[in-house]
């Protein structure tokens, strides 16, 4: 059914169709509308067979989900940014125990400095915890991925994080096709836990594993995600068959067949990138892009195949490995092992800075000319940073960088630069 609906609301209504049984919620921008929507549905009786629990912190939220999942209930929560870090211990715990929790991550920057706008630093902070991580490109996909996520999580007994760009995919109003309950039921059977707390068959879950067994446990976790590499495409195919549209999968290419330059990105920025690709193609540039949907497991082989004929690759990412460079880019480079293809890192959109078509076009054209640096910070205000570096070099103890930039730039900093 078509609805003109806020992205968060679409996700909430879709998640509700997945028949979750325990939902726990702690407010944090920009995911809050999702859980508010679910809470309202539970309270109004529209979503039955579900308990909605207002917890006292994100740590408690995921903890409640862990307990609920271990006791055999389909469990869901959502968070962003600081909240994800606050539940970090539980994030690793859920993956380590193999509990099929689905969590929406409304991607938002992590402080300091505190910033409530979108980037991927939160997702990247937990990328190695063992969760499956899927990135939505559009509002429609943001909703649809949740249906696949529950199915995937429960099939593998592995938690799944559905990453949706905060503000962009959560707060925008778009036309969404919401499925019918029967469609979702046909795709997603009731939860049958692999292990469960049951007085009739008692077990101890969460033993202490020492050096003699720990490596094997971790190997098996890795193996599980490698199994997901096979399962994710299959589930996407089945989804398209049942619901009549494409969503999910490991990755998809756009106008990449004869591209000289290939852009790789995750999340909603791909929409803008595709627009730029179209414009540049119209002007004769041999350019295309690869939209990476599954970030974990990282589809090394599929990405290799998608990129191997390109002359160069530009990774546009909303994340930064401080002291190293690109996070996504480093993962992409691993896919291109054995090839000499240059991979450029473009750090863009940090802290919610808009990524404009113009900026991207200039970036891609530079890449095409071969004059792009190894690492580029898109739309960096070089004057500000230069001034700051000079000031820091002059003084022995400069103080917080953020404070200084604000002072030197004067109010307000929100203008586009």
């Amino acid at each position, binding site marked *: 059914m078509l609805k003109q609906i806020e992205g968060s609301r679409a996700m909430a209504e879709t998640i509700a169709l997945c028949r979750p*049984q*325990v939902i*726990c919620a702690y407010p944090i921008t920009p995911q809050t509308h999702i859980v508010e929507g679910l809470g309202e549905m539970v309270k109004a009786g529209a979503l039955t*067979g*579900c*308990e909605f*629990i*207002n*917890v*006292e*912190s994100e*740590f*408690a939220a995921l*903890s*409640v*989900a*862990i*307990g*609920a*999942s*271990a*006791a*055999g*209930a389909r*469990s869901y929560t959502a968070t962003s940014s600081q909240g994800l870090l606050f539940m970090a*211990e*539980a994030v690793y*715990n859920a993956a380590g125990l193999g509990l099929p929790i689905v969590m929406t991550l409304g991607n938002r920057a992590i402080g300091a400095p505190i910033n409530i706008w979108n980037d991927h630093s939160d997702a990247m902070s937990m990328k190695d915890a063992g969760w499956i991580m899927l990135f939505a490109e559009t509002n429609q996909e943001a909703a649809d991925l949740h249906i696949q996520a529950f199915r995937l999580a429960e099939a593998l007994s592995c938690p799944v994080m559905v990453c949706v760009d905060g503000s962009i995919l959560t707060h925008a109003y778009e036309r969404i096709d919401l499925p019918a309950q029967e469609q979702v039921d046909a795709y997603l059977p009731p939860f049958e836990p692999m292990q469960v*707390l*049951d*007085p009739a*068959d*008692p*077990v*101890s*879950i*969460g*033993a*202490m*594993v*020492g050096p*003699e*067994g720990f490596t094997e446990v971790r190997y098996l976790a890795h193996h599980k995600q490698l199994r997901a590499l096979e399962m994710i495409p299959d589930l996407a195919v089945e989804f398209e068959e049942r619901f009549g549209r494409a969503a999910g999968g490991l990755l998809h290419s756009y106008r990449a067949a004869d591209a000289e330059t290939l852009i790789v990105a995750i999340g909603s920025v791909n929409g803008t990138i595709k627009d730029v690709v179209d414009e540049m193609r119209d002007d004769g540039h041999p350019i295309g892009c690869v939209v990476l949907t599954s970030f974990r497991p990282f589809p090394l082989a599929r990405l290799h195949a998608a990129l191997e004929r390109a002359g160069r690759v530009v990774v546009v990412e909303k994340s930064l490995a401080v002291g190293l460079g690109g996070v996504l880019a480093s993962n992409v480079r691993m896919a291109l092992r054995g090839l000499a293809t240059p991979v450029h890192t473009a750090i863009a959109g940090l802290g919610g800075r808009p990524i404009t078509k113009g900026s991207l076009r200039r970036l891609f054209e530079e890449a095409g000319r071969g004059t792009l640096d190894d690492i580029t910070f898109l739309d960096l205000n070089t004057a500000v940073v230069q001034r700051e570096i000079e000031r820091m070099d002059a003084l022995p103890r400069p103080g917080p960088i953020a404070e200084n930039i604000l002072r030197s730039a004067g109010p307000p900093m929100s203008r586009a630069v």
Partner: protein
Amino acid sequence: MTEQSYQRVKFYQTGTLTVGNRLLDEVNRTVQASMSRSNALTSGHRACQGCGEALGARYALDAAMRATDNQLVAVNATGCLEVFTTPYPETSWQLPWLHSLFGNAAAVASGVAAALRVTGRSHVRVIAQGGDGGTTDIGFGCLSGMFERNDDVLYICYDNQAYMNTGVQRSSATPPTARTATTPAVGPEPGNIFGSGKDLPRIAMAHGIPYVGTASVADLHDLEAKVTRAMGLHGARYIHILVPCPLGWGSDPADTIRVARLATESGLFPLFEAEYGEVTASTPIRRQVPVEEYLRTQQRFAHLFKGDSPDVERIAALQRAADRNIRTYHLLRSAGDER
């Protein structure tokens, strides 16, 4: 408020302070006296000799298993209890058990309870358990949240008054003057200082939850009665059990119960119950002892008695604290009161 919440069997009815008594009806004996007790925590665990927590956990869980007809799930915080019971490949738990993390046993338990409810298994009850560190410090936030929501969980804190599993470091449950690795017995105020610490049972009471109780491994009948009572209620419940740690306290492993008894008989650890924020019953002191008798049993207080001059002032301060408890909870009843 002078009575206890359960009626002690009088001697001429063959009353008993022992675990069992062949002259008593089974119903008046403790759960522990029964050959068919659950042994929810069975042999083969790696607790130290004489571990009070191992004992307290079996006491509490067996009572809860009996009260719930074995329909029970336990969630356990990180700590001694979790570590010595589940080193892969061995577990000594015989009931469904989940290790949470250090600070979230209460929240995980809330989740378990919600799942049981929503999947139509409300008759299965949930216990969350942890040590004092995992409850009063790192677990405080989640505990408070569980209380505030009145989630249907019984939280049991096994209080050995320090972070024992990591090597005896001070927690907010460590009593004043006690030596720990982070409150060493050196300097002008050796051991833990006065003026710090939390009274978790009273904090629990401040949340207005249906039931709060304190108990001790030295009084099994009392402990079982409280667990049983708690399992007969719904909503957030809290029981705080004193469990001596021979290693951390520096007491003789054989003295574990004796030391716990002295803690109660001196007034330092009062046994009481509260409902919805008000104290409803207390267990009277049977034979009062001065705090010194309790302190001398443990090396962690040895610095108070060093040389020929005991630290009179600080011992007196502890005695005052004990006396305050005695007044607050009416722990000394006059002859003729129900015993």
